[in-house]
């Protein structure tokens, strides 16, 4: 079951949602979340919540955006918050 997650991702022709994968594998979505976290800890899956890469927005703050009370690069108000994504590590 745990390895079936990796197999499904390796053979998928397009993106999958957690719900689709849970139905494919016949497990509760919440249990699937636990299994996915296991692979994230093992480094086989990489989690991407969209915040990575926004940690050094020096230029943004100093020139274009006048927001003096910027809540921080990861919470930039001018960005849309993307959904959390997992992908197989290279």
């Amino acid at each position, binding site marked *: *079951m745990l390895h079936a997650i990796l197999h499904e991702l390796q053979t998928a022709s397009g993106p999958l949602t957690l719900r689709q994968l849970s139905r494919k594998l016949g497990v*509760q979505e919440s249990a699937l979340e636990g299994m996915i976290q296991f692979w994230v800890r093992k480094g086989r899956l990489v989690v991407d919540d969209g915040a990575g890469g926004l940690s050094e927005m020096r230029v943004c703050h100093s020139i274009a955006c006048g927001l003096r009370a910027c809540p921080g690069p990861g919470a930039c108000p001018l960005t849309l918050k993307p*959904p959390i994504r997992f992908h197989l590590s290279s």
Partner: protein
Amino acid sequence: MIALAGNPNTGKTTIFNRLTGARQHTGNWPGKTVEKKEGTWWHGETRFRIIDLPGTYSLSAFSAEEVIARDFIVEARPDVVIVVVDATNLERNLYLVLQILEMTPAVIVALNMMDVARDQGLQIDIDGLSQRLGVPVVPLTARTGEGLPQLMATAAQVASGPPTTRFLPPIRYSRPIEEAIARLEEAIRAHPQLAQGYPARWLALQLLQDDTFCQEKIAHLPGGVALCQQAREARISLEARYRTDIDALIAEERYAWIHRLVQEVIRGRPQGPTLSDRVDAVAMHPVGGLILFLAIMWVVFKLSTDVAAPFVAWIDLFVNRFLAHWVLEGLALVHLESSWFASLITDGILAGVGGVLVFVPVLMFLYMGMAIMEDSGYMARAAFVMDGYMRHLGLQGKSFVPLVLGFGCNVPAIYATRTLDSRTDRLLTGLLVPFMSCSARLPVYVLIASIFFPHFRTPAVLVMYLLGVLVALTVGFLLRKTLFKRSETSALLIEVPAYRLPTIKNVWMEMTLRTRAFLEGAATIIMAVSIVIWLFLAIPVNGQSAFADTPVEHSAFAAVAGVMSPLFKPLGFGNWQNASALITGFIAKEVVVSTLAQVYHVPQESPGPEEDLGFWAEARLAAISFFRATADTLKAIPGIVGIDLLDEEEPGAPPALGEAIRQGFEQTSGGRGALAGFSFMVFVLLYTPCMATVAAMRQELGGRWTLLSVGSQLTIAWLAAFLVFQAGKIFLS
């Protein structure tokens, strides 16, 4: 001593608070920043200490909370461990139960949230579950207290019962693993210090999984080093046999065991498609999802243009009539009404900054739409649908995220390309981000669309956004076939959140935070640029006018911008005014509108004696017109679905300025002002982004690629606008 363990959000703390009431205190676990809660509970004459362990999903020692929970159970050896389990998420929660059962037999499973489970139609075979786990299972609803007395009676019974010397946890792993565990257990029991310190089977399992915490703990004990070596050899042997990590293997067997158990003990009414499933059948369908996405974007732009229009008109009235008038009156009190200072204030700051402030309602409605899409959970569905299309075009599905970010602001979108795996993908996506129409360009579209397409504002704006996406996808596809040969795209798993009703608080917060970012930028960048533009507009070049008293077409600004204007003649908007707006747009795209407001100089008409009502009367009128604008905005909402409740067409752009711009475009295009306006919008969409984006590109992509990007964008923008204008001339003549 009773320890409360469990996954987060299972009601563990509710149980703790109900039992201990005020008899609790909070501190930190020694050497950690994790909160420790401890309390007292009386059962008859017996006093029990209750420790609320940190909520964890497992005890794998990856986090401080897991280490604390695990070490406490193993070393402090509570008399009872109550594992609080969410009855509606049994399959996930049982993983922790299994791990704890491998550490101690003194376990009670508190099956909480039974009320929710009943509402969901779940039927759990409590006795069967207890039998399979080998420990008591007590159903309860901590929220109401139902079942709590039974839980604590069972806890007292277990705590006072005789200690179990040999307890076999319910799960048996496959034979090779069990044989390895047995050999390690035997070695552990041969060393009394090891056997007394830790449960033998648990220690064997941890060492087999290369648990460094355990290795460190036993290394100094007699036999510890040899035991670690034995475990290492067993692990290597098993991993060679199964060709996978031993901890993945053990976790796999645990999950499989739990899955079989859950299939046996849970019966529920058949789950038909929920409302969410029915909506997702459309929202996540490749074709239906795209249509829905376009429809939602239509509504968002309709809000930003037509519904915001009454407020746009009100701000124009307030800034360019009321405020400008009374600032001049104030300056007249100190005899400065005809000075260069007055010109700076009215023609520089008010015209420039005010020209952009007029569009604050437009942006507020756009941000509101974006916030609703995010807060409702819809944005994740849109990302899922677009991911599929991007893959078909040979683009990395993950690239959608930075591209979507670019709709807000291109700068963080460039930085977000760091989340992509390969350098190729980062480069390619970084080159495409500037084609995403950022929110700063929206005021330009609304201004031009309001002037030339007053009945088609929304479609005109939507076309710009779609055109940007189309150009980005086309350029990306071409680059993939040429410079950036396709690399393997990795599969993607997207966590799509449950739909929820957006809260007014969240939406308001997002909306105001983003608007504040825009306003603070207006108060700094735009004001600074407006002052510089005013200065250049005030400097005469023909020697016949005085400083700050020169016609704009005879100013230094006009002379400089005029050098560039012939470049834009084939595009239909080749005059110095439009050229200057595009030049200043390099600083920040919002400045395009403020520059247009300044260079298409519309003299402020002072009110005649019959119109001069006095400050307070005019202020009262301004307030009344604000409420009228609010009412008109509400009346404009049904217009989204074609129901027109407004008395008259609300102008989307300041009338006098709009007329001045219209005449300018008509002159430069030979009477084809609308076509030239559309061409201008296309150019603004596609030409080089603001300097902050360029700086971010230089940092992320390198100087060479940034230069290539800037050059190619200017070329694409010029060619696209040329095509629009020239082809339009042919087809519309």
